[in-house]
Structures are given as structure tokens and as C-alpha cells.
């Protein structure tokens, strides 16, 4: 605990505050003092007509976000960048070691392993997820009867919490009594040992990730229903088949959604953690996800400096990939602005 915080803490403790509230009170008092100052300054500025009341109100209203941004985002980022150049095991003071952590990183075989595991997972599971959820959404968009039931069924798995999902799939992929190997057994195939096998643990995790494509599906479904019917009618007059309509009308129209969703899925996949954690990295580190390796370093071995270096490398990798995908998107993502030469992209229909 910080010295000043500890003093405030002790003060409240002496005042006989309930123990459960004690950790909050020092922080709360600092914020309260901060706001008293902010209000006082704002008042003076407005009274002296240096700042218009509208501006003052705006900044007061967004002040929670500004404080949060400084305290929980940009402050930590700067601090993290600094400690990534230090050797710090929490108990002692951080020791400046320059690029030592980054040099160590490039010699760390586990770092490469975790990177390989995460890339394997991301590059296989994200495209599969996109294709599968889009395929289901396209089928559902045929305006069949009873689609609400199907929609609910496909969406249900996404409601199962991550740990519960893992627990469930450990048993679905159980080599002896699990569902998957039982089905394979019916066809006379002896299934692999899945989560106990270095080669098959990752395919099992990827299959598991496909179980929750319902969320993406709903998003695509909404995008599909926004495609103007006039485009389909025009295509029909030209004698287009269903397949051609999908290829030439549907896909270009929903490509912005596909793109945005693909980017967020990718960022999410890079941060996969639970599957690694609950399997202790998997057999032969086959499930040593990057985020899990980072967690191990920072919170099991308390190597905060090295952990921060790992975090920054992950950040840069995600950034690079995002930029790459954005660059590539110009080739296939279709925005209506291009078509109508500068005319504003039509705003999505208002939903009350």
C-alpha cells in the first residue's frame, strides 16, 4: 500500500469504519477532494467568463471518463511501458535494465511457443467462426417459418460462461466416455485423446470455439436484414440465381459488418486465456496461450517487468494485425459512399 493511502486508511480505521468499506475509503476521499477542487475551479472560470457555462458543463460531465482514462488507461500504459524496461518482482523496487526484458524475450523458447499456439488458434478458429456464422445466418435469412426457434437454439451456447464451457467440453472430448468419441465409435473410428494429446488439444479448443458462433450469427443476421430488397429485385430481373445473388449482392452489402466483426474476433482470439489456464497450458504446452503465459509471468512468478514486456509485444502484434487487416480491407469491403460519389452513407433505419 502507498504511504499516504495507508495514513488515510489508518485514520478511517481509528474512526471505527466497517472493515469491508476500509479499502474503498481512501480512494473515495481522494476522488471527493479532487471533485471539490474541480467544481471550485470550474465555478471561478465560469464566473470570470473565461469559460462558457456550456463548455464547463461538458467537461464536468465527461470528467468521470477523463479521470478513468488517466487512471485506468493512459496512466497504466505509460507505467507499463516504463516497467517493461525494469526488473521488478513487486516486493523490491523496480530496477532499470534497459532492453533486458526484450532481449530475454527473443531467447525465451516458451515465448515462441505461446506465440505459435496463439497464432495457430487465431488463424484457424477466426476464419472458421466467420464462415460458419455467416453460413448459418444466410440460411436463417431465407425467411423460413420457425426461424425464431432456430435463432434461440444457435444463440443459447453463447450464454454458457467460459469456465463452464471448458468444464463441459473437457467431458464432451473425454477419450473414453465423451460424446465426440462415442459418435466416432459408432462409425468404427477410434477417436484421439483430445485434451490429453499434444496434437489434438488445439483442434478440440477450436471446435469448442465454434460452438459459440451464435453471437456473430445474430450480428450478421441483422446486417442481412438491412440489405435493401430493391437490390435483390434488380438482380432477379437480370436473372440472377440464388448463389449469384449471395455473391454479388449480399456479401458486398454486409462486407463492412463482416470486416468489423472479423477484426474484433481476431483481437479477442489473441487474448484467449481461460482455455489455457484451466488446462494448465495443455499437454506439452500445446495450449500455452500468450495471455496465459503473460499471466504466469506476472501473477504466478511475479515478474512484472517481463510480463509488461510481453504485454507490449502482444499490443504491437495486435496493432500490426489490425493495420494489416484494415489495409487489406480496401480490396473487399464495400462502402456505399464509393458508389454515390461523396453522398453520405445512408444512416441505418431508426429503431425506436
Amino acid at each position, binding site marked *: *500500500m502507498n504511504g499516504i493511502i495507508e495514513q488515510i486508511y489508518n485514520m478511517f480505521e481509528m474512526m471505527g469504519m466497517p472493515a469491508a468499506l476500509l479499502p*474503498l475509503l481512501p480512494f473515495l476521499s481522494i476522488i471527493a477532494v479532487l471533485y471539490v477542487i474541480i467544481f471550485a475551479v470550474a465555478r471561478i472560470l465560469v464566473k470570470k467568463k473565461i469559460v462558457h457555462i456550456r463548455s464547463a458543463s461538458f467537461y464536468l460531465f465527461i470528467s468521470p471518463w477523463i479521470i478513468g482514462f488517466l487512471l*485506468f488507461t493512459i496512466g497504466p500504459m505509460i507505467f507499463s511501458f516504463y516497467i517493461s524496461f525494469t526488473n521488478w518482482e513487486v516486493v523490491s523496487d523496480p530496477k532499470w535494465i534497459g532492453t533486458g526484458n526484450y532481449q530475454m524475450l527473443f531467447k525465451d523458447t516458451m515465448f515462441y511457443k505461446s506465440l505459435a499456439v496463439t497464432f495457430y488458434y487465431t488463424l484457424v478458429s477466426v476464419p472458421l467462426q466467420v464462415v460458419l456464422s455467416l453460413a448459418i445466418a444466410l440460411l436463417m435469412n431465407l425467411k423460413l417459418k420457425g426461424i425464431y426457434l432456430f435463432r434461440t437454439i444457435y444463440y443459447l451456447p453463447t450464454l454458457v460462461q*467460459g469456465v463452464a464451457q471448458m468444464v463441459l467440453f473437457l467431458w464432451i472430448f473425454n477419450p473414453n466416455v465423451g460424446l465426440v468419441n462415442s459418435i466416432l465409435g459408432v462409425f468404427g473410428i477410434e477417436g484421439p485423446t483430445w485434451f490429453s494429446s499434444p496434437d489434438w488439444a488445439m483442434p478440440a479448443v477450436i471446435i469448442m470455439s465454434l460452438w459459440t458462433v451464435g453471437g456473430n450469427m445474430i450480428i450478421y443476421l441483422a446486417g442481412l436484414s438491412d440489405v435493401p430488397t430493391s437490390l435483390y429485385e434488380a438482380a432477379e430481373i437480370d436473372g440472377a440465381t440464388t448463389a449469384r445473388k449471395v455473391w454479388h449482392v449480399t456479401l458486398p452489402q454486409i462486407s463492412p459488418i463482416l470486416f468489423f466483426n472479423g477484426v474484433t474476433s481476431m483481437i479477442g482470439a489473441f487474448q484467449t486465456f481461460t482455455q489455457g489456464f484451466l488446462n494448465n497450458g495443455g499437454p506439452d504446452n500445446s495450449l500455452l496461450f500468450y495471455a496465459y503465459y503473460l499471466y504466469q509471468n506476472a501473477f504466478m512468478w511475479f515478474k512484472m517487468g517481463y510480463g509488461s514486456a510481453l504485454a507490449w509485444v502482444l499490443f504491437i502484434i495486435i496493432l500490426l494485425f489490425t493495420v494489416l487487416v484494415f489495409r487489406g480491407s480496401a480490396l473487399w469491403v464495400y462502402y456505399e459512399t464509393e458508389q454515390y460519389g461523396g453522398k453520405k452513407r445512408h444512416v441505418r433505419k431508426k429503431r425506436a
Partner: protein
Amino acid sequence: MSAKKERKNSKTAINILAYLVLIAGGVAFLYPFVWMISASLKSLEEIAVSGMNLWPGEWRWDNYVKALTSFPFGRYLINTLLTTIFPIIGTVLSCSLVGYAFARFKVKGSGILFLLVLSTMLLPGEVTMIPQFILFKNLGMLDSLYPLIVPAFFGSPFYIFLFRQFYSRLPVGLEEAAIIDGCGYFKIWRVIFLPLSKPALIGVGVMVFMGSWNNFMGPLIYINSDKWKTLTLGLAGFQGTFATSTNLLMAAAVVITLPCIILFFAAQKAFMEGLTFSGSKEN
């Protein structure tokens, strides 16, 4: 004429095919889910021999009793509720206020600040995870529920964006009458905008609920003592110690999933709208 008929026929054929694929897929999607519930009601011996059979021969409701008494369920439930309800209140209030400011005040600097909000939306949590841990350590908040609650009161970029979008679509004249009446900007938010944004409030509330209820990494990092553990931590610990008691494990998994299912059916519209609005999901 015949070409039209042909097209109609092919359309029916496509529809039938679509149904078949959807049903087959639906079975595959639903099966693990139903299996989880069914296994939670079977004896261990039955699970071992039943293979793909879902119907329990003997309904073992006492699995639930056993599962929930093998760890401090009540305590974990209360902690989970605390780390769910307070973040909902905090997020809804802070993001709605900040979103209102960004939507209705076009003052110097508001545009660039909003860009800043947007740019932090895709920031991976790993980068700030370690320093945030240090911060909460310095604040004396480690091994308490506060690190899981406090940040929610300072807004979150994605929900700020949602509220801003919502408030931007409301008619311009809305606050003018109130201003003429001498109403302050804060009161306008509280009396006019906040009540009007009920759909957004519900949507964001549901999303925050799902995120907080299912949060695993947060509690894992910040909480050590049993006293403050949440249900997800309980389930993970359970997996470690009772790995072979599938039925009890499934019972615990069902219990932790149940509130989300109930909420989903109670607020399906909010779920779907939130989801389609966001175009992203939180795990």
C-alpha cells in the same frame, strides 16, 4: 410462365434443404447444452455407461445439493451479485452522463476527445492489466471486490459510444424548452434524457451483467481469500478438486449458467439489439 414455376420449385427445394441443414446444426448446437443438464442429474456410473443417451434413468436432484454444499456457494453468490449489480449501476450512470455530454454539447475539444474514446475501444486489456494491479495494490484494494467494481463508475468507451449514439438520435428541440424554463444541464440529463434512454439503459445493463457475471480473469487476479471469491472462481476451483465428479461439476456449471439463460429469455429484445448494435462480443 414455366420459367417462373421452375424458379418457384427450386426455391422450395432450397428451403427444404435449408431446414434440413438448420435442424442438423441445431441438434449439434443444442446437444452439448442438453448433455450438461442431463449429466448434472445422473449418477457417475450412469454417465460412464449412457454414452449419447440423454434421459437420466434415475433423477439425482441431490447432485445439486452436493455440488452447492461442497464450496461456500452462498458467499460466492453474494460476491458475484455485488460485482455484478454495482458495475451495472456505475456503468449505466457514468456512461449515460458522458454519452449525453458527447451527444448534445458541441464545444471546443469535444470532437477530439470523442475520437480518443473511440480509439481506446479496441485496446487489449493485457496492456493495462499489470499496472492496474499495481495501482489497486497501492490503493490497498487487493483481495477485495473493489477492483472489480470501482472502474465501472468511470465509464467504459464502448458503452459511452452506445449512449452517445442513442442520445444523438433524439430530437434537437428536446432540451430547449427546459433551458428556457431555467433548467440546468445536469437536471436536463437527469429528468429528460436519462428516463428517455430506457432501451439503451436496459441494453447496456444486460451486457454489463453478462460481462461481470461471467468475469473470470478479474477475480482470478485480484482475489485470493475464500471470503471474496466469485462463482466463476468457485467453478474453476471445483474443476481442480472434483475433476472426476462430472455430475457435480455439471450441476455447478448449470447453476452458474442459469441466471444468464433466465435473463436472456426475459430480455431477449435487449440482448439482440445490444448485440447487433455492438457488432462485438465480450468474453
